[in-house]
């Protein structure tokens, strides 16, 4: 390992160059190149089937058949050391629904090496202290998702990768989640958040627009709107596609 690697405050959180992924003989990600700067909330936007989850899995290091460069916190994606520095929240909440919220967190506190004290902290962060003794199975969908998010927060990750964390949430909950994301970013955490809801672009410092495995945009929201002469990201998305097909 070089001296400049593994330093928390140097270089982008994620650096991708000519990243390609084959699934079932089809190239689902085609030569993607972009950086995710540290301490920002970066939105990965695109319709379902655009390759968002595959890209997220590549960055977390659980995707096979990845070629090109994909570095996370200065290390190759999937490196053993990254397992304690990167938090990953899958689209489907990956927690044990036949355990209570607290039992889930206590277990994952051991497997992440976070220690028991982290349990109380993350319960407050996702606002589930009142539900700690309840079986996860008895929670609402939004609460269920937040248990999964709490697990990712246990280890105090430097990079938090979230696959569609706000899907199916009511606007109030969605707002409180985005507040949490911004608080985390203010504390120095880098967040990569995927969504198929274009509205959420306004919450992000930077945007990555993905469609059919290709990157349409990699810039800030205002810059995207100015470039396309549009007033919202949905229109900008259409503008880019129309411009490309003309």
């Amino acid at each position, binding site marked *: 390992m070089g*001296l400049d690697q593994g330093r928390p405050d140097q270089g982008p959180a994620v650096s991708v160059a000519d990243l390609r992924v084959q699934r079932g003989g089809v190239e689902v990600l085609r030569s993607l190149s972009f950086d995710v700067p540290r301490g920002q909330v970066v939105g990965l936007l695109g319709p379902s089937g655009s390759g968002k989850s595959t890209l997220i899995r590549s960055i977390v290091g659980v995707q096979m058949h990845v070629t090109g460069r994909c570095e996370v916190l200065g290390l190759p994606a999937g490196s053993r*050391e990254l397992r*304690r520095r990167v938090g990953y929240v899958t689209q489907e909440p990956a927690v044990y629904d*036949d355990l209570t919220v607290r039992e889930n967190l206590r*277990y994952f506190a051991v497997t*992440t090496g976070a220690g028991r004290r982290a349990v109380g902290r993350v319960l407050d962060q996702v606002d589930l202290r009142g539900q700690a003794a309840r079986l996860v199975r008895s929670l609402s969908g939004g609460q269920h998702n937040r248990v999964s998010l709490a697990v990712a927060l246990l280890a105090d990750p430097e990079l938090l990768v979230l696959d569609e964390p706000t899907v199916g949430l009511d606007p109030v909950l969605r707002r409180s989640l985005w507040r949490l994301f911004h608080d985390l970013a203010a504390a120095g955490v880098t967040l990569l958040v995927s969504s198929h809801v274009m509205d959420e672009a306004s919450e992000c410092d930077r945007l990555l627009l993905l469609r059919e495995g290709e990157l349409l945009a990699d810039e800030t929201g205002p810059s995207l709107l100015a470039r396309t002469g549009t007033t919202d990201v949905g229109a900008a998305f259409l503008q880019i596609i129309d411009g490309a097909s003309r």
Partner: protein
Amino acid sequence: MTGATRDSTTGITTIPPTPISHPRIVLATAGRVLAQLRHDPRTIVLLLGAPVMLNGLLAWILSDTPGAFDQWGAVLLGLFPLIIMFLITSVATLRERTGGTLERLMTMPVAKVDFLGGYALAFGLTATVQAVVVSAFTFSVFGLDVKGPVWAVLVVAVLDALLGTALGLFVSAFANSEFQAVQFFPALLLPQLLLCGLIAPRSTLPAPLEAVSAVLPLTYAMNAMQQLTTHATITDETWRDLAVLVAFIIGFLVVGATTLRRRTP
């Protein structure tokens, strides 16, 4: 926990050599599996009640045939834990695979052996409780009488349960649904049951089948139990069976570990 340390002044992270296993994670995993079981009282009742009920039924069926229950009751004491743990483990690990929790654990500093070890420990303990409860009923209430020591019967029953757990972990890799996982019982265990010498003594089998039965784990699991019913001491043959059983358990756990993938195709 993993022993990775970061020097705060240089920012260099030192990673120790590949950790083989983390005892704390093994214990936590076993505790978590047992907690899931505790939240499911109906499964606990079935785990303990069904084998007791079946052994009682068998004792009743064979009550007019002298000596028959002594022979078959002990065999069932070994067979139940094996079948039940096989089914429970294959479904439980399949749920981990399909529910995303296994993928999540694989993105954490968890060794595959931690995961498997946790399951083996949790179900090994469960099997011990089951063996003690079922044996207590079978020996004292249903009047089972074996020549060998009772503790050895318990040891074989627990090893059989661990064999079931190891096989269940292994086959869950080849199933995409609970439907498929349960089908591995007739596909994988029933042929072994037919060949292990219970239906027909192995020496009477056609030569190719006898050769096949010699490499199947159930043959040794059942032979060990039969030896204990007919011999007052633990024979060399029983020790050999136990050694082979332990080797199969470790072997299937290791092969099972290779089926836990960190990456999605």
